[in-house]
């Protein structure tokens, strides 16, 4: 058992550092000067759960591309309002609705999503130029999935 009467630890700087740690969501913070140095750290719970493996469905290509995750919060992204299958042209053999480089108006149909046997035209909410088409023909998409970039 330590003899607490011999040492007087100044808890103020430690408390201040611990507070900063929390406020700034840090895991470690240290301070040192000529007379004194202290380091405060928080143990991190490494989340050992496996990331879900989005494997290809028997129907077609992967539901989630890595590239889509990059555009989740991108203001240029037109996102899918439903779960279904993407068609880039109105019918097989016809020309695609849009190509990269096209100018599109707000309300213009960009592609079709088939859901439960109904064809749903997906319209652009933005006006501008199509810079990227993030999905392939007949690709399965989920709600909120980025489809096209318009800027």
């Amino acid at each position, binding site marked *: 058992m330590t003899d607490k009467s011999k040492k007087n630890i100044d808890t103020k700087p430690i408390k201040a550092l611990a507070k900063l740690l929390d406020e700034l969501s840090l895991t470690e913070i240290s301070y040192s000067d000529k007379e004194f140095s202290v380091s405060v750290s928080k143990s991190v*719970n490494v*989340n050992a*759960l*496996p*990331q*879900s*493996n*989005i*494997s290809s*469905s*028997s*129907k*077609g290509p992967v*539901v*989630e591309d890595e590239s889509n995750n990059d555009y989740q919060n991108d203001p240029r992204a037109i996102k899918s309002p*439903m*779960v*279904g*299958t993407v068609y880039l042209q109105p019918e097989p053999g016809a020309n695609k609705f849009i190509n990269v480089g096209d100018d599109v108006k707000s309300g213009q149909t960009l592609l079709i999503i088939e*859901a*439960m046997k109904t064809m749903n035209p997906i319209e652009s909410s933005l006006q501008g130029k199509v810079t990227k088409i993030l999905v392939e023909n007949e690709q*399965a*998409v*989920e*709600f*909120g*999935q980025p489809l096209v970039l318009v800027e």
Partner: protein
Amino acid sequence: MFEKILIANRGEIAVRINRACQELGISTVAVHSEADRDSMHVRIADESVCIGPSAVNKSYLNTHAIISACEITGAQAVHPGYGFLSENASFAKMLEDHKLNFIGPKFQHIEMMGDKIQAKKIMNDFGVPVVPGSEGKIKDVEHAIRISNEIGFPVLLKASAGGGGRGMQIVKNDEELRKVLPILKQEALSFFGNSDIYVEKFIDSPRHIEIQVMCDTHGNFLHLYERDCSVQRRNQKVIEEALAPDISEDNKKKLYKICTDAMSRMGYLGLGTLEFLYSDGNFYFMEMNTRIQVEHPITEMITRVDLVREQICIAHGEKIFTTQENIKPLGHSIECRINAENPETFQPSAGQVQMYHAPAGNGIRLDTFIYSGYKVPHYYDNLLAKLIVTGRTRNHAIKRALRALNEIVIDGIQTNIDLHKKILSSNDFKQGAVPINWLENKIDQI
């Protein structure tokens, strides 16, 4: 066997269903709202599909999105869990129309039992004892007053489309009835889409006893004994146990037979639970739930039958793997529902789980979906975890539960863990057989 099942639910039950599927070698598809992107059921499934924004009606109740998700993933069957679409007969029928298998009862039976008035009538016809009452919806206030005076006040006014403890109100006399009825009708219309009300005799201080049934397509209608779910607050279960203490074996045996006979006459399929009020040695049928229940694990622990696994096998047309004689209960099991709630106000409380440590050791089972760092969303119900404890005897189970409640750590959000400790330490609970109004009446004293 099915190759791929879509789990149309979230939280702990979605994890539970995932586990049963994985043990059967079935691929799983998790569907989720945007708020549940990092939820455990999504992480452990083989595939996941985001089906909508956080709002329940746009995601977990979105039948079209769920069916679309089946189409793009090739899932052959849907397990609806509990709540959400699990007792939605139209959804079950919709799946059938799309050549998808609904893991649950026939949609006609879901519809039948979903109408609480009709359910009572049907059960009454099958010789199941029911609570005396209006035997049908009340036509008007005068009708309600007549019936109530016949059966004797106090009476319970109940919404026919309600259930799960919601849409009911006690009235003590004519005047109260006149006042409450129009309000209850209005509430029933907005919450359940149906303003039909029926009257039941209010049974004072009953216990809540329910019978688990399991039926297949091969003529087997089995029971898996009972659960005592009397520890409730505002008609929501807090603690459940199996088997029920202080009820004679004879009385129980009679009830089991009544239930399995009724299921046989109905031609029921899958799992179901018949809920009864028990008072003065009598059982009174209240309602039937045509789905897996939250508290199913306590039945699993004492019978060693995996109920979710059986649901899947039965839905696939298989014969139940065992016989009634071979399902013998052993030991006593208690479940504590651990909710994210403010211990004083009982308001649900969301937030981030800063630190989570599960209890372990003999006889401990924890069904949950939380993990350290998980952000509990505020859009959904606040059940965090089910602590299921099994012991040789009831006393042993209680001691073990207290031991486990002392071990469990859920930091960062408020929970009702302390309430569970208080309940399990109380003399009343230790004695057993408390009625459904016990917790609310005694909560300040325990």
